[in-house]
């Protein structure tokens, strides 16, 4: 079966005073129907920008889609006329962003905003739209949904606002939900509520989810498959269990080793990854992680490793030394 969404060789650039930022570089992957894909990476890894470009939301200029295709149900979203793309957004592809307060319009009630989406995309009339909006609030676990339709965003807590955002995203029964750090602004106990909600919805509605996060712990409990991004490149991809247990890229291994765990005692100091991410306006020809990597040699600094396929099913890794990693080398310096 063809994947629901297929990204092929996507490359995104941003023009800045200092030079051109190579935000996303030759990114290729697919999302299968019904799966939850986790996309992890630190700030500047290109994880959010790539999602925005999937939806045609990269401001151009200063942004520029320098190449590639994004195929959704056989159509390339990058060449779709704006009107059709607008129809798709909030329709078959829905989004939830990090900050619910800036995503909601403060001068309209949340009911009005959900109803607007239903009328616009599904052509529902006012009465049925209101009933559907109340159903949606109920679906995302908001108590007294009929009453809450009249609430304005500032009258709701952060967790409630994010539930409203999810309700709006689900309004038109999307096939794909793109969630960009949707719980980062929330407290952990509220985050746990939202995560349980999205898991339940993806099960009940057979929703395909792309969940973008910097939190490796969160993604571990949520995704079936994970993309790891660094400096705009996909550096590793695989099924969640194998990826966390045996990371093949020194960056992923280093990240996991540098994080203290709630369920473990750490008596020694953390094994930090030395250095910092590269300047994206000055990426050289070599591996972007080479300067921080304990396994790096001359070839790593000069030549970009291709995405390689280890024998293990479904895994991809962009590293010259993945075999040494598989044999148990500690890649991080």
């Amino acid at each position, binding site marked *: 079966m063809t994947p629901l969404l297929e990204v092929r060789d996507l490359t995104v650039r941003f023009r800045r005073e200092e030079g051109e930022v190579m935000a996303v570089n030759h990114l290729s992957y697919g999302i299968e129907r019904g799966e939850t894909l986790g996309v992890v990476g630190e700030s500047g890894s290109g994880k959010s920008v790539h999602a925005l470009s999937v939806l045609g939301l990269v401001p151009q200029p200063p942004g520029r889609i320098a190449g590639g295709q994004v195929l959704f149900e056989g159509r390339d979203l990058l060449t779709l006329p704006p009107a059709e793309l607008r129809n798709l957004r909030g329709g078959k592809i829905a989004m939830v962003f990090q900050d619910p307060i800036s995503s909601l319009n403060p001068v309209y009630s949340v009911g009005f905003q959900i109803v607007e989406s239903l009328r616009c995309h599904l052509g529902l009339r006012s009465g049925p739209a209101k009933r559907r909006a109340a159903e949606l609030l109920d679906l995302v676990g908001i108590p007294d949904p009929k009453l809450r339709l009249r609430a304005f965003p500032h009258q709701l807590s952060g967790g409630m606002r994010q539930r409203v955002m999810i309700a709006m995203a689900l309004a038109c029964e999307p096939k794909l939900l793109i969630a960009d750090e949707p719980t980062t602004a929330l407290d952990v106990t509220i985050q746990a509520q939202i995560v*349980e909600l999205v898991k339940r919805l993806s099960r009940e509605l057979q929703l395909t989810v792309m969940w973008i996060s910097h939190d490796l712990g969160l993604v571990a409990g949520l995704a079936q498959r994970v993309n790891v991004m660094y400096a705009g490149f996909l550096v590793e991809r695989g099924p969640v269990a194998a990826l966390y247990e045996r990371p093949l890229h020194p960056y992923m291994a280093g990240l996991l080793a540098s994080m203290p765990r709630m369920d473990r005692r750490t008596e020694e100091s953390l094994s*930090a990854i030395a250095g910092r991410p590269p300047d994206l306006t000055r990426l050289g020809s070599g591996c972007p992680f080479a300067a921080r990597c304990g396994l790096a040699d001359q070839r790593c600094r000069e030549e970009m490793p291709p995405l390689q396929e280890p024998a293990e099913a479904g895994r991809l890794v962009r590293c010259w030394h993945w075999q040494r990693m598989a044999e148990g080398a500690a890649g991080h310096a």
Partner: protein
Amino acid sequence: MPERRVLLQVRDLKTYFPITRGLLLRRAVGQVRAVDGVSFDLYRGETLGLVGESGSGKTTVGRSLIRLQEPTSGAILLDGEDDLTQLSGQALKQARQRLQMVFQDPYAALNPRMAVGAIVAEPLEVLGQLGRAERRQRVAELLDLVGLDPAFASRYPHEFSGGQRQRVGIARALAPEPDLIVCDEAIASLDVSIQAQVVNLLEGLQKRLGIAYLFIAHDLSMVRHISNRVAVMYLGHIMELADKAALHDDPQHPYTQALISAVPIPDPKVEKERRRIVLSGDIPSPANPPSGCVFHTRCARRSALCQAQVPELRALASGHYVACHHPGPPTSAG
């Protein structure tokens, strides 16, 4: 810790913020009880973790300790003698020299128009104990201590990354040779791979210089790693305070249990098996906190007693304090 000498004793600290109405005739119409009767000891050379969700009052505790925020009432005893809440003028300045702070946002905490060397030298200038040449020497030592090249002293904050800026903030806090540094979400704005670097730096400095930290954070995993003891706050109250092993392995307060169970663990196998205690509802407003135990609105163990009476923070075992009428390990009801 070999010897436990008390550095700070905090007793019934309350910090309220007035809610005002009216433009010309501003009158107080209520108050936000950000910190509402908090007591704890902080020992020399230890790291006390202070965790809680937004609105729990953890940051206000830190700011009240060094009088960046005036406490409403209560006492903060330094070395069992001076009450910090009563000091002013020269005496306050003297005391503050011993208590420093590292802030969350390394972009906002450093003056963009001052060179990094001048930023680190500023506390030394204020204290006025060193001459110009000695100050320059000391700044170089401090930058070296936090892992920055002393030659960077003439550069400006915008030339540094977030992690490096946080190192500058730490160097500035170290300048007056404090006994305590309040780290208010000091690593929260940094990327994962940089957080470990800064935490290792803080731990190394503690070993060498014997500084105590009040490590305020919402990231319980990191708090577990760095702290000797941990205090859990909720709506202006300390709910539980214990050695980190006791707090994590044998939490007694239902809120602590829910909080710990909500923290994701970067291990898919563990996550699959885990049973989460998902709290219903949100944290209530500190302007209108619930009666009795402030947690009772979200607690599965609540009884009539919880609604009527505020539970005291009492010792269940040596050094393990809990403010709950029904403490104990998690039940099936959560």
